[in-house]
């Protein structure tokens, strides 16, 4: 006899091998917190948004010198445009995140459910990439601003010989590189652990289509 048929016969015997939960067992279960990956992903995205908003705004609130400098920087149209852009981007990401969370439905079929979770993860990923790119751009940009506005710095750089200038570039690129690498590893690890099983199962379903 087919192995599964034998199993099926036993499976449907409905013998009480499970501890049956009573109503009073089930009620408290409804109050418990979910530990699903969607919930974790949600907390991560909130933390992500909060972290980057904080990174961008905290210096403004704690350093008076920075605040003053920033206020003069706003006179520069390029800087102004970048600030407005970053604000709009945050709003767009909040909207996209909200939308993709709404689209996660446990009553979808398994493949669709996995896809909507992976889509949400992508939105978070893009937000992080956007922030890293902005940091990457802002380092040379702030050096440029500094060069134009800060006379001391301007003189220092102007008096540099070519080896020193190269050194400055190399150090800047190196530090930026390390910074990005650490972030990248952190995210790889974080999402790698969290979504390992989901990715594996999604691949298994995808594999069938080829």
């Amino acid at each position, binding site marked *: 006899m087919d192995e599964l048929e034998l199993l099926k016969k036993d499976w449907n015997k409905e013998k009480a091998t499970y501890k049956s939960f009573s109503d009073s067992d089930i009620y408290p*279960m409804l109050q418990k917190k979910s530990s699903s990956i969607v919930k974790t992903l949600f907390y991560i995205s909130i933390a992500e948004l909060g972290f980057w908003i904080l990174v961008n705004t905290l210096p403004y609130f704690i350093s008076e010198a920075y605040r003053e400098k920033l206020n003069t920087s706003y006179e520069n149209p390029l800087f102004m445009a970048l600030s407005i852009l970053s604000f709009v981007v945050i709003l767009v990401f909040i909207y996209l995140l909200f939308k993709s969370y709404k689209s996660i439905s446990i009553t979808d079929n398994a493949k669709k459910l996995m896809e909507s979770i992976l889509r949400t993860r992508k939105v978070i990923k893009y937000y992080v990439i956007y922030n890293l790119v902005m940091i990457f751009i802002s380092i040379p940009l702030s050096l440029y601003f500094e060069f134009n506005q800060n006379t001391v710095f301007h003189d220092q750089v102007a008096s540099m010989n070519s080896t020193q200038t190269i050194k400055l570039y190399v150090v800047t690129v190196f530090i930026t590189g390390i910074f990005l690498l650490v972030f990248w590893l952190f995210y790889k690890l974080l999402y790698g652990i969290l979504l390992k099983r989901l990715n594996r199962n999604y691949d*298994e379903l995808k594999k069938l289509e080829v």
Partner: protein
Amino acid sequence: MNKELEHSFVEQLQKHQNIVHKVCRLYTNNADAHNDLFQEITIQLWRAYPKFRGDSKFSTWMYRVGLNTAITLYRKSKRRINTQEFDSVEFKIKAEEYDDTEEKQLKLLYQAVHQLNDIEKALVFLYLEDKDYREISTTLGITEVNARVKMNRVKKKLKTILNP
């Protein structure tokens, strides 16, 4: 939340809880993990319940939410030991004293099913629950043809696990 809604939900879940237990049985290896998954499925069912319109049977709806939770949403907690290895060790010992008696064979079968991956388990689960390929395909989001193909592969895989 609405007390009436809560009451009707608990009543239905209580009645059909065997479905959830069966999902837990396939996807977990010990009582702690079983109860943990049961808890998570219950939460997911309860959350989705306000949207349950009754256009499908409550039990049918439970299959989908239960499996989705087990395959996709559920995170095994770290404190639990990895019983996968334990299972296969036990299986090897048992395989040597392989015997025709039905009970022993069943035990081996359950152990073999535990060695399948999450998607394969889902197929086996729906098959054991006597679901047709149409329902299997719509639950998992694959085509009916692929569901059949996959099912045949699962059967073969089970055979290989049982008769290495």
